[in-house]
């Protein structure tokens, strides 16, 4: 039944990989964007405080007694120290001539006087940010331009940025882990219905070809519809072939009866021993064919009725004694005695009387067939209140040990049955009936070493 399935990838794995990939991409994107944004923000705040410093120095520039007085406020530099530990450089020029500060500071960004100008430069081997602004003053009646530049190294900026990067990286990793966790959950839940369907289909019995009726997600509907339609076609095809077999068996059985009657009439008329022998062989072959046809019909009947099981209260004792009565004439022909043991009270189970009868007849027929002449077949009905059992034991050769498992399959006959008419369907029928009723068929050899033992067990109807 289970052929090798050729696999290609895994939906779950693909889902997880795609979700993880997406999450990682988003996390990286977030990191980059936030970092860029943070850098702009940090650079802006440095520019702002440098601008404030420059402005406060320019504000302090005044003309006193006809000369330039420049009383740099303490706050102009201390405010820079409040924000970071960066080094501070400054320079003040008057009409482009150096006045005070660091004379070798790089030249500031050129621009209009009214503008605050920014420049990033290298001074004493480190990167600095320079902010420059200027103001017009009238010194001794002459208009002059006082320009102030304040510069700062960017260690604080770098440190802030590193801290932000670390935080954002942690945040990104956390985000990724959370997304990964949710992604795995999502993949699991997406794959869940598929697993459920696979589970419920694979748990089914071999004969169960009913359509799947459980509700499934929209995406799986086409698959389930296809599965259902496939199963219904399979079932139709199986039914058709069984019908065909039954029909064929039926068609064959009636003419065979006629042929057998004619053969017996012929047998009486024939005198020559070799001719009589030939006719007997013929009759025997006809019997075999007719029996096979009968069992095929039986089997078809069992299959059909199993699916539309009618359940009524049936007494195992009644069934057993009926079967024994029906087959007693056949047993008598071979000088076989049937010994029936019944419990005191009826063993009622819910089931189909015709099927159960057929199962018992097949088992008893087997027992009689495989028993030597002048022996005893024992039929024992027992029950313990919850389970009932019919055990049929013969004194034949028993079952070959290696075959116990396969004997219930269709058309499988034991290796030690040569010389006995049989179709290989008897045990199959009994087994199918037992299963249809939730019971079981058990085959074993008698412990004393003589004969086989077949028992049918069922759960009894609760009273």
């Amino acid at each position: 039944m289970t052929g090798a399935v050729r696999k290609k990838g895994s939906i779950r794995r693909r889902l997880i990989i795609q979700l993880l990939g997406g999450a990682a991409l988003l996390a990286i994107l977030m990191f980059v964007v936030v970092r860029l944004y943070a850098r702009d923000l940090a650079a802006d705040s440095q520019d702002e405080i440098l601008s404030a410093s420059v402005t406060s120095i320019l504000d302090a520039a005044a003309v006193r007694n006809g000369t330039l007085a420049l009383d740099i406020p303490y706050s102009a530099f201390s405010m820079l120290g409040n924000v970071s530990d960066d080094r501070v450089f400054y320079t003040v020029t008057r009409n482009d001539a150096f006045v005070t500060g660091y004379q070798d500071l790089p030249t500031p960004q050129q621009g209009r006087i009214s503008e605050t100008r920014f420049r990033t430069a290298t001074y004493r081997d480190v990167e600095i940010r320079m902010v420059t602004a200027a103001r017009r003053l009238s010194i001794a009646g002459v208009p002059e331009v006082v320009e102030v530049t304040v510069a700062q190294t960017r260690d604080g900026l770098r440190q802030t940025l590193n801290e932000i990067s670390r935080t954002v990286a942690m945040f990104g990793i956390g985000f990724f882990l959370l997304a990964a966790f949710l992604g795995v959950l999502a993949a699991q839940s997406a794959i869940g219905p598929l697993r459920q369907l696979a589970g419920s289909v694979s748990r089914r019995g071999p004969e169960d070809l009913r359509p799947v009726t459980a509700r499934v997600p929209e995406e799986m509907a086409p698959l389930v519809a296809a599965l259902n339609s496939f199963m219904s076609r399979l079932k139709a095809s199986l039914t058709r072939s069984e019908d065909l077999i039954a029909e064929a068996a039926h068609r064959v059985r009636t003419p065979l009866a006629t042929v057998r009657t004619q053969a017996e009439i012929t047998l009486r008329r024939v005198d020559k021993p070799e001719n009589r022998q030939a006719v007997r062989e013929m009759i025997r072959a006809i019997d075999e064919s007719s029996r096979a046809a009968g069992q095929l019909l039986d089997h078809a009947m069992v299959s059909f009725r199993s699916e539309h099981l009618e359940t009524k209260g049936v007494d195992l004792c009644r069934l057993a004694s009926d079967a024994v009565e029906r087959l007693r004439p056949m047993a008598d022909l071979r000088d076989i005695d049937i010994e029936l043991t019944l419990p005191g009270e009826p063993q009622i189970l819910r089931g189909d009387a015709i099927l159960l009868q057929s199962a018992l007849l097949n088992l008893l027929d087997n027992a009689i067939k495989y028993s030597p002449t002048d022996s005893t077949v024992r039929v024992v009905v027992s029950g313990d209140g919850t389970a009932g059992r019919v055990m049929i034991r013969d004194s034949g050769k028993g079952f070959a040990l290696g075959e116990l498992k396969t004997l219930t399959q269709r058309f499988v006959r034991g290796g030690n049955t040569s010389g006995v008419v049989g179709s290989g369907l008897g045990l199959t029928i009994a087994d199918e009936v037992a299963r249809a009723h939730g019971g079981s068929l058990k085959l074993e050899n008698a412990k004393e070493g003589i004969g086989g033992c077949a028992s049918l067990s069922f759960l009894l109807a609760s009273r």
Partner: protein
Amino acid sequence: MRKFVLLAGLALMWLAAQATAYEIEDRRSFGPDGASRTLRIISTGDASLFEPILTSFLQSEPNLRIDYVVASSTQLSRAIHEDGAVMDVALSSAMDLQTKLVNDGYALPHRSNATSSLPTWARWRDHLFAFTQEPAAIVLNRAAFDGLPMPRTRQDLIALMRANPDRFEGRVGTYDVRQSGLGYLFATQDARSSETYWRLTEVMGGLGVKLYCCSGLMIDDVVTGDLAVAYNVLGSYAQARPEETQIEVLLPEDFTTVMLRTAFIPASSELPDIAGRFIDHLVTRQWDNAPGLSQVFEGAELTRDDQALRRIRLGPGLLVFLDGFKKQAFFEEWRSAVLQ
């Protein structure tokens, strides 16, 4: 070999030439003679003040000598800034000059457990480390205040001097801010803290204030009674002389300016590792046998009322007072207050 000796000789001569470019006040050596390495320390502090800490450091560093050079804060700054002297540690009480040297890139960074456990106000940029905090005190001669209440604030002092000009005439002293870097630092910080400073300066100017270069001389004159009041004296120096019972060391309650003695490793250092260990030793050592040198650790109780403490803040703010324009303006204002 001969070549090497020649080169070494030339190098030594060059070093000697370098070393003489700035003026030194004292030079002392500590440690074993045969030591293979020499840690060069340039400091504004007296060798006697630092001897205990130098010897305790040498105990943990065998095979090391310490060459201890004492110079004024301006000369120290000049040695490092202009002369490029090879120094491993620079110790100074002139916080502004120290800050400028670090700001201008003449220092190496140093990070250790010891420095990172310093309070944030006691370090700047992982380059400059405060290892003591020393208040600017007013030292009074007890006898001069006989019959007068002892002042507790600058306002008290102003009132007393105004009320008794005869008693204080010519007996008031303070730093000449044009000469002394520390005096200038104290004066600028006082001026920043309160207008009272200018009033006090004017009152002292009116009483014919005597100007000094150093705390030690001022204290000497208070001890002899030549001075009744010495304003802005390094408290540590005054407290280091407990035997002088005739003086009273006043930490003004309106506000007391606190100077931080700082250390850094000059960029020219040839032994930055040992210098770093020395700085760790400086900042972690208990200064119990150096009265008045209050350690930076454990908060250090300087006055009963910690609110009045004005620690001079390390950082670029100190650069303001080193600006030439600013300095000239301050000198002028100061001169007009003092020399009336």
